[in-house]
């Protein structure tokens, strides 16, 4: 498959969040800022990538009946590795993302990709799939994080955009704002997808 096409697909049409509506919990919970969004996205990408590769490697060894538990164990292993290494290296970020790092295990995207793709494709393809799906995920987290940070804190990637004395719309860093922003972003992404589809 053409890499560019694949990239566009996983960023828009088949974007895990806006296209497939999966992995919503980390999406909404960790996107109080663009930076957090990227952090979560990359952590997920790493797990997605590694587990895709390992699942693809093991795809002929694992008996069908236990494939789900087996995949879960594989995924959980990588999640724990991410968890520990982030704590060792990116301590502050790890603290903000908190509970949602271990919860990558149950992020539906990961198991879904392991099942739908990696268990049936070559290692290289699974690697690419993991990479792009992960980046697509990161992308939407980044967008959502940006919107919420700009509206809610008046800053972007930590850089203050409006004067200190101005008010920011606090809701956007809180729970309701997460849902509302995602609602509107979904529409934007849908529009973009259609644009790309027509462009093809």
């Amino acid at each position, binding site marked *: 498959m053409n890499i560019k096409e694949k990239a566009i697909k996983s960023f828009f049409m088949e974007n895990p969040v806006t296209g497939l509506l999966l992995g919503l919990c980390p999406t909404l919970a960790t996107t109080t800022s663009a930076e957090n969004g990227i952090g979560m996205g990359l952590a997920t990408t790493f797990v997605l990538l590694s587990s895709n590769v390992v699942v693809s490697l093991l795809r002929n060894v694992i008996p069908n009946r236990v494939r789900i538990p087996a995949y879960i164990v594989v995924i959980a292993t990588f999640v724990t590795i991410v968890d520990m290494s982030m704590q060792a290296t990116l301590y502050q970020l790890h603290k903000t993302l908190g509970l949602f790092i271990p919860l990558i295990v149950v992020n*539906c995207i990961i*198991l879904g990709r392991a099942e*739908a793709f990696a268990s049936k494709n070559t290692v290289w393809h699974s690697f690419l799939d993991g990479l792009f799906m992960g980046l697509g995920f990161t992308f939407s987290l980044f967008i959502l994080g940006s919107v919420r940070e700009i509206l809610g804190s008046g800053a972007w990637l930590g850089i203050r955009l409006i004067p200190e004395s101005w008010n920011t719309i606090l809701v956007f860093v809180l729970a309701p704002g997460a849902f509302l922003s995602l609602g509107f972003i979904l529409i934007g992404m849908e529009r973009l997808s259609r644009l790309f589809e027509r462009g093809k």
Partner: protein
Amino acid sequence: MVEILLPGFILAGFALISASGLYLASKKFYVYEDPRIDEVEALLPGANCGGCGYAGCRALAEHIVNDHTVDTPCPVAEPIVMEKIADLLGLEASVQEKQVATLLCKGTHENSALAMDYRGIQDCWAAVIVADSIKDCAFACLGLGSCVQACNFDAMRIENGIVVIDEEKCTGCGICISHCPKNLLVLRPVSQKTIVTCSNTDRGPEARKACKVACIGCMKCQKVCQHQAIYVEDFLARIDFEKCTNCGDCVEACPTNAIEMRGEQVYVTA
């Protein structure tokens, strides 16, 4: 080394307990189910995300097998998966000639005038509640577009008081047919070019009064047809698609233009 092996053994223990527990349980509590459900489920991603609207992959598999349909695609899986499932269940219908919906009426505003000033809900079914027909012809297309609403493929539009079907877009799904209160829509194979575009079963004079291009049941077409493909019943000509060769003789013979040749004339030699 111990600090590495010990966790290994512990988790292996966990795995052993749960795996053998499940294994035994699945033996002991075995329940028969259509084995194809398992097969379909195996093809599905197993992400159990619920994205398809069913409660997990198995529920979708049950739906597919029990209702024998692949109408609900899995949002996670590649499209090929659904094809595979269709193959597995032999759902692929054998290749058939394309069918298109066809309106058996030519009662445009010119041909069959409006008989009233209908102001109710603009829907064919709503209109027949108020009056059997809103045009002079009791059998005419009402032109309020219940069928248009029903078509999922944007293949219909209303033009000059009757519905016009875009045969390119029409998929022959047939949904529109049951949505017409006047029963004016039928499916016909695209290669069938000759159509009686009338459904009026009144006697000739009344039919004529109601619509300029009505079939008056004069029998001329029946007489002229060499293939016994057209016959008049209840003062209305009808074509047997099996027998019709699209020769066009009846079209020539009809005094009221109630028979129509669609597109290029194609002669089929018997």
